[in-house]
């Protein structure tokens, strides 16, 4: 992603644009240098510059922002998650913290807390849980999404109310699908209950797939997913694989669309090996 590095380099200069027109002050120059080092992932060198800025110019308007970038450096270094958390939290306490950096800091705190949890610190989840009630929905939603990924199902279940609320109130399809998948992960019954409450006259609600191996009573594979996710799952097929299936006379997208139209129909395929596949839509 060198493109972005290039853009960033310029934007760093640009974001200090007004300063360039006038005389660049030493604190501003130091801050710009530190940011460029951050973009180059020269974390230690950037940390040194940021420390110098805060030490030499504690009253500089950039001294506060330096805390945010300190968090970025410590986070990038790896193994210093707690220090990074502290830096972000220090930034959040500043009275003149910028809105965009606040949101970013909150998101980074959620990510760092998740990392610490994955490394065995169960108490780190507290930092995610408290953000489920955050005033900013961007922070709230992200905390719920991240919490849905933790292996402790009891803890993950705390994300259910926020995830359900997303499905009930949000219009953004990207957010909706993410919330559906997250709910399917932690509480499929909650997803069903939320989806059932949403009016969808005449449109299919669920895609079901079962696969039985020969001679077995219980299906070897079962899937019940909301219709919206079925589309995503089918779309995930590689173009080459879809073409291969079409050559054999099967176009899964077409088949599922046909099933959706005929509503109460069921597609049944018996393989050479005696396995049985059934696909239907409700």
């Amino acid at each position, binding site marked *: 992603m060198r493109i972005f590095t290039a853009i960033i380099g*310029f934007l760093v200069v640009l*974001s200090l644009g007004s300063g360039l027109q006038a005389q660049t002050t030493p604190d501003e120059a130091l801050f710009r240098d530190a940011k460029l080092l951050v973009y180059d992932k020269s974390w230690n060198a950037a940390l040194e510059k940021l420390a110098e800025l805060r030490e030499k110019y504690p009253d500089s308007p950039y001294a506060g922002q330096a805390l945010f970038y300190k968090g970025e450096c410590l986070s990038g270094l790896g193994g210093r998650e707690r220090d990074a958390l502290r830096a972000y939290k220090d930034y959040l306490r500043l009275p003149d913290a910028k809105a965009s950096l606040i949101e970013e800091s909150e998101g980074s705190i959620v990510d760092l807390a998740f990392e610490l949890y994955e490394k065995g610190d169960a108490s780190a989840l507290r930092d995610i849980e408290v953000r489920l009630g955050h005033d900013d929905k961007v922070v709230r939603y992200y905390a719920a999404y991240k919490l849905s990924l933790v292996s402790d199902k009891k803890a993950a279940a705390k994300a259910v109310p926020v995830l359900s609320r997303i499905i009930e109130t949000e219009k953004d399809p990207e957010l909706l699908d993410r919330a559906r998948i997250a709910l399917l992960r932690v509480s499929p019954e909650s997803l069903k209950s939320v989806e059932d409450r949403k009016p969808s006259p005449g449109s299919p609600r669920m895609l079901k797939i079962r696969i039985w191996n020969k001679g077995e009573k219980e299906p070897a594979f079962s899937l019940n997913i909301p219709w919206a996710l079925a589309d*995503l799952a089918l779309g995930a097929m590689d173009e080459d694989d879809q073409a291969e299936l079409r050559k*054999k006379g099967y176009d899964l997208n077409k088949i599922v669309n046909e099933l959706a139209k005929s509503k109460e129909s069921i597609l*049944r395929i018996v393989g050479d090996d005696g396995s049985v596949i059934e696909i239907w839509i409700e």
Partner: protein
Amino acid sequence: MAEHLEKCPECRAAADEMRRVLAKTDVVKAEIREAVTSVDWEKLPAVIAERAFSASRKPERVLPAARPRAWLSALRMKPALAGLAAGLVVGAAAMYFALKAPGPRPGPGTGYFASGEFLDKAELEMARRNTLDYLEKSQYVLLDVFESAGEGGAAPTAFSSAQARDLLSRKKYLNAQLERDQIEMLFLELSQISEKMPAAELHKIRGFVEERQLLLKINLVRKELERGI
């Protein structure tokens, strides 16, 4: 010189030839000017990327994070799910395909359920689609800056810190699949740029983006991702 030309037929012929060449050069200059003004420079990167990819159907490079192994391919490795793919692909001789009114439904499930593996694959596919959308929007932001710079330096119309913040909030969900810092840092900077940007600064951005053919590069990445759909 005029007197000499009147007397010397060779020099007169050479001078005539020179005039003709210069006259043609003027025509060519005009044509070049016309051609240059007829180019939609903002669409040009997309056109170049389109042509580059229509010339070669196979990818030369695959982005490891952004082009996840597709759903069906992933199924091949999972014994239970592999049955689905195998059942569909294995020789058609012993297969029958029927659309019929349903009999008793297999299994008890009336609720939703899906394996963690399946959900991981679905999320991966979603990340790929969203990355495309993300790149597309980042192009719009840059084009906004372009247009503003070209219109006498008025503040960018739709280019606002709110847009960059929106992109930032979406980017968080892609961090598991994409490099975290660089894309995010780009929009972090964008989100802090004032809407009241001076015209000179707008022109600087435009010059920078053009010089490095950034839109073309973003287009090329997008095309690579799109070919996976």
